[in-house]
């Protein structure tokens, strides 16, 4: 069953068409990559899916519901959460608090309940702390929980973003370049973590990624964008040998060369 169906999404900024008639179907329980050169419109596509931008055209069906035009917080409440390409943590909050913020839509304490400190609120707070610690252990950050987010090393910040996104109990998680700026060892760990998201938590994953090794090892399907348009879609092996993809990445000459090599 398709968990997410984006149909004919177009997003324009003034005269610039950043995403042009892109469709994408994501099966529940899969790991899908979106790749493409810089400025191809990948992040913009994510922003449209999560409601940060309203699409100029197109519809988005998530879990059987039309979510086109909903606010980002409503979409998160329905079960899509994301990380950001340029890490956006709540810097002056602790690691633990960052995760607790992510839980916002799953908590229910209202103003008066909080003021009167009702037992249900306390129980909820206790449970949410437990869950936050669990998530931090999942991404191996529990020992850092009382640090301010801004003081974490880079790799930890990326993992904290994932933990924060997980806190909203999403069905689908969108990761925008989760291994950017990491060294090979960190990248391997991150790849492993992404796989665990699906295997252990059962969350469907869509990721934007530039590192081809990561893309090829973990994705089940790959979608390629170039200048806002979808130029290819398929299994990793298909993408690897697709001349249009090679051309988009390496330029025309290389494409011809690559094709020759494949043939030879």
């Amino acid at each position, binding site marked *: 069953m398709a968990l997410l169906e984006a149909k004919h999404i177009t997003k324009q*900024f*003034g005269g610039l068409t950043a995403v042009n008639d892109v469709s994408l179907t994501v099966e529940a329980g899969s790991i899908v990559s979106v790749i493409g050169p810089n400025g191809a419109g990948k*992040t913009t596509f994510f*922003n449209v899916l999560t409601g*940060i*931008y309203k699409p100029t055209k197109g519809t988005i069906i998530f879990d059987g519901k039309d979510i086109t035009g909903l606010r980002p917080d409503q979409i998160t409440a329905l079960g899509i959460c994301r990380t*950001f390409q340029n890490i956006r943590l709540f810097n002056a909050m602790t690691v633990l608090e960052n995760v607790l913020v992510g839980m916002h839509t799953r908590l229910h304490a209202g103003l008066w309940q909080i003021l009167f400190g009702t037992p249900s609120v306390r129980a909820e707070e206790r449970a949410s702390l437990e869950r936050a610690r669990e998530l931090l252990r999942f991404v191996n950050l529990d020992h850092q929980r009382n640090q301010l987010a801004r003081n974490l090393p880079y790799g930890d910040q990326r993992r904290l973003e994932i933990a924060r996104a997980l806190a909203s109990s999403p069905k689908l998680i969108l990761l925008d370049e989760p291994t950017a700026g990491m060294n090979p060892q960190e990248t391997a760990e991150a790849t492993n973590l992404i796989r665990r998201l699906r295997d252990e938590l059962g969350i469907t994953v869509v990721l934007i990624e530039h590192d081809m090794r990561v893309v090829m090892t973990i994705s089940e399907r790959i979608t390629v964008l170039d200048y806002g348009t979808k130029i290819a879609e398929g299994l990793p092996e298909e993408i690897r040998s697709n001349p249009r993809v090679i051309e988009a990445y390496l330029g025309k000459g290389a494409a011809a060369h690559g094709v020759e090599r494949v043939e030879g």
Partner: protein
Amino acid sequence: MAVEATTGAELILTRRSFRSFMSEVFGPLLQVFLFVVGSAVALGGVVILLAVVLRGTREDIDLLQGTITILPQVIVDGLVRGFLYATIALGYTMVYGVLEFINFAHGEIFMVGAFVGAFFGAALASSGMLTTINPILFVIAAVLLGMAVSGLLAMSVERIAYRPLRNAPRLVPLISAIGVSLVLQDVMRMIAVNTGLGFNAQFRTPDLGQPLVLAHMPIADERTIPVSVDSRSLIFIVVAILMLIGLNYLVNITKLGTAIRAVAQDRPTASLMGIDVNRVIAITFLIGGALGGAAGILFGMRVGTINPYVGFLPGLKAFTAAVLGGIGNITGAMVGGIVLGFLEAFVASYLSLFTRGQFSGASYADIVAFSILILILIFRPSGLLGEVVAQKV
């Protein structure tokens, strides 16, 4: 160089650049002019229509006649207010353009300009020259003096209170600017009170001439009333227009203007291209401050008495004008100022008339200005002339 051979081409070149010169310098003014005419006609139409509709409600006076009688005066008032807000708004908008920062203290820069003029007038008076000096010379000297002091002040304020905070979160420099505005108010009060100028300072000028009668308007029974512009308003409008021309030349034609626009568009890149960003920002403050100072002089000259707190309301409204026109957009600031000025002038004059004096137009004009600010920000935050830009994520 083969000068002779290329003469023809050069001629075309200069002619073309002359045309583009004219369009870059006067194009924005044409737009401003269109908005002046548009505002005057539209608002004039509205009040006449209202007068016709409400005519039956008043027996004591002929509402329609009353409306038409004061209309020319209201339009002049609108022009003056419009140019006042436009010149102040330019300071906000230019600084916003390069720094994305609301220079909250700009209203006080304007106020300081007004005081410079008052000091100038007082100094001339005490040396007995005020009666003998040529009025035109006086106006020119006062405006230049006000521009210099306010411009330098704005530049120093930037250096001391804003530059150290350039990379801080948005609210930090804004709060600092609020502080600067309070400090300037009180420092000016301290100076004014202790130099004998007084809290309510008189802006003394030489005799600036009689009102200029433009026409005689017939009213009932073959009587006519003169339609006139008082000389101070006229000076205001003329000087303001000259300054706007100068500014357009500076920003659109000169190399400095190009640098300012480059910094406004993309600061890091401009810096990579070898533009000294700090210097450009300082100069932007200098220009904005100078315009504010000139506006202060003209304002003080027109109202006659000023105090250290006069900068607040015009500052706030000029900011409204800048937002109305599309903040960061220079032509927009002028247009926004004009539109706001006209609206205010009309409300100030006609609200009392139409409500039998139940609502004081002068007070409610302020409310109208803020309501416009709020409505614009909600429904068209990019302003009349601004482009819609989505925030990048």
